[in-house]
């Protein structure tokens, strides 16, 4: 059988993208994840700008992971300028980051990914039967927005986290409010786990891969660190990322892609849970122990479940962070120790490892390099789509092949989830 599968208009992969799978004589001939969006040249745009200007520009790369970009940029710039931030500043940044994780994961797990597993065309169609769960997802998102607003100053593009400190520190009352609400809202996260545990994760996509995530210090679970952990038992300094992450381009896509030592690799919630999930404590730790198994190492669909675990983790982490923050006085803004230097920030965005590298000369940016998780995942998404397509074709399961392939792409949550329903099949 010949078949041309085209998934068009994959929005929010920094713009527009699509997936094309060509099947000829019952053989998968070609798989392409195409990014149509033109280059945005952000890295060039910040050359000649001050670090403060950079912090206002780079978060505009993405309105979903705006705080991740700000956090990674802060880390890179502060390393380059020799700025040591006080503990309270770091804790507040971690708190705002939990807000972003919660917001992004709750949308993806409940609204964008779940309909596929429950055999609905979209979350809209789920409302009749699952109204309560949709409302719960909105409550979770509402709380996540509140965390970001209270800590970073705004829901999107928060301006509070600044070089060396914080513009305005949230009040004790605001922080205690977040702590209480995080506890109250926990049953929603537990419901998410219950749903994820009840789903069937098809096996057509099973294959080994390499995982990477930022390694948080002190053997803790978390989203920020100075080294990168790889499933090959390697650990490298974030500053050395160029030694192992190779960027390349393909003729059918405007997005640069990354490989780990020349091979596709995966980043994101699943990579984090697979690599450092055994560090989880409390409820999240119990859930990890109960549900994590070897299938998670070979099937990208489990990224949805991994995100659900991270929702629980964030809701446990918020009260802990608030308690720590309230023990400390509001510090003065830290000042640069030098005006020239090099630094790389490594942060886990909801979709995976995000790197911001800066070379600064006389307090002006001379060079910057930003590698996003979607760029890191693209080759592996394409590879897993091919594997799934090949397995389905082998078993002559053509009926819902588009849906299965969309589910693979969507599992990575590469900002294409919402449009992956728009599949057009052209039979040759």
């Amino acid at each position, binding site marked *: 059988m010949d078949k041309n599968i085209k998934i068009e208009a994959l929005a*929010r992969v920094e713009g527009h993208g699509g997936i094309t799978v060509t099947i000829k004589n019952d053989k998968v001939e070609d798989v392409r994840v195409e990014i149509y969006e033109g280059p945005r040249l952000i890295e060039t745009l910040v050359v000649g700008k001050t670090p403060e200007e950079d912090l206002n520009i780079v978060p505009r790369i993405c309105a979903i992971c705006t705080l991740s970009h700000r956090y990674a940029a802060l880390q890179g710039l502060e390393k380059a300028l020799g700025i040591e931030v006080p503990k309270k500043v770091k804790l507040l940044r971690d708190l705002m980051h939990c807000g972003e994780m919660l917001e992004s994961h709750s949308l993806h797990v409940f609204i964008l990914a779940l309909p596929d597993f429950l055999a609905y065309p979209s979350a809209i169609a789920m409302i009749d039967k699952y109204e309560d769960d949709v409302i719960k997802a909105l409550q979770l998102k509402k709380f996540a*927005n509140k965390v970001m607003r209270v800590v970073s100053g705004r829901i999107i593009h928060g301006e509070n986290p600044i070089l060396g400190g914080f513009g305005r520190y949230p009040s004790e009352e605001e922080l205690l409010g977040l702590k209480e609400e995080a506890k109250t809202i926990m049953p929603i996260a537990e419901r998410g786990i219950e749903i994820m545990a009840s789903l069937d994760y098809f096996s057509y996509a099973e294959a080994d891969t390499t995982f990477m995530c930022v390694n948080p210090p002190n053997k803790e679970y978390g989203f920020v660190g100075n080294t990168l952990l790889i499933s090959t038992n390697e650990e490298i300094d974030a500053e050395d990322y160029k030694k192992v992450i190779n960027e390349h381009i393909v003729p059918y896509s405007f997005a640069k892609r990354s490989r780990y030592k020349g091979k596709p690799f995966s980043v994101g919630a699943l990579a984090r849970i697979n690599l450092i999930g055994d560090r989880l404590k409390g409820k999240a730790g119990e859930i990890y122990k109960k549900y994590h198994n070897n299938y998670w190492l070979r099937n990208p669909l489990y990224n949805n479940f991994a995100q659900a675990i991270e929702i629980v983790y964030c809701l446990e982490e918020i009260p802990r962070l608030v308690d720590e923050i309230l023990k400390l006085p509001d510090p003065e803004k830290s000042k640069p120790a030098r005006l020239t230097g090099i630094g790389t920030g490594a942060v886990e965005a909801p979709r995976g490892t995000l790197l911001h590298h800066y070379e600064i000369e006389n307090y002006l940016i001379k060079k910057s390099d930003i590698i996003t998780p979607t760029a890191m995942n693209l080759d592996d998404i394409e590879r897993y789509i091919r594997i799934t397509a090949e397995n389905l074709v082998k078993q002559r399961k053509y009926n819902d092949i588009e849906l299965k392939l969309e589910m693979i792409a969507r599992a990575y949550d590469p*900002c294409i989830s919402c449009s992956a329903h728009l599949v057009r099949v052209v039979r040759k």
Partner: protein
Amino acid sequence: MKKIERLLEKIISAGKTVYIGLGNINRCDDGLGIIITNQLKKQLQNRVYNEYDNLEEIILNLIEDQHTKNIIFIDAIDAEKAPGFLDIYTPNELNSFYLFSHKVPLKIYCDLLKKHQKNVFILGVQPKVLDFKVGLSDEIKKLANTIVKLIVILEKQSI
């Protein structure tokens, strides 16, 4: 305009109405909904929002609010009419209204609101210019001011 005036009067007089502006102020006339609601916010307190507010919070509060009868989204709508064409639509009439990429689709909000006995409408204006530029075109700006005045008058009448 008379037709819209009558329709709005009917909606507003039926009960408490909440206004939510949609759009992008960096795309010229696409910012119409935001600009109208920013002006309305000064006159109709606690009943006017825009998509840059915490939409989840607003919708969840509206679902629980027994007093709110109507929700009117205000947006630029391409109805393939002359610039400035104004109409009131129901959510089912506008397919593109539902397509929000990597956000909760507005259709979900509309369906939830309808399930909780709220009337949902979209006040749509045909834009003239959608270029990357801040500020409305003169024609649409004039109309936006008229819409603000009309809503304020009708709201006062309904008290």
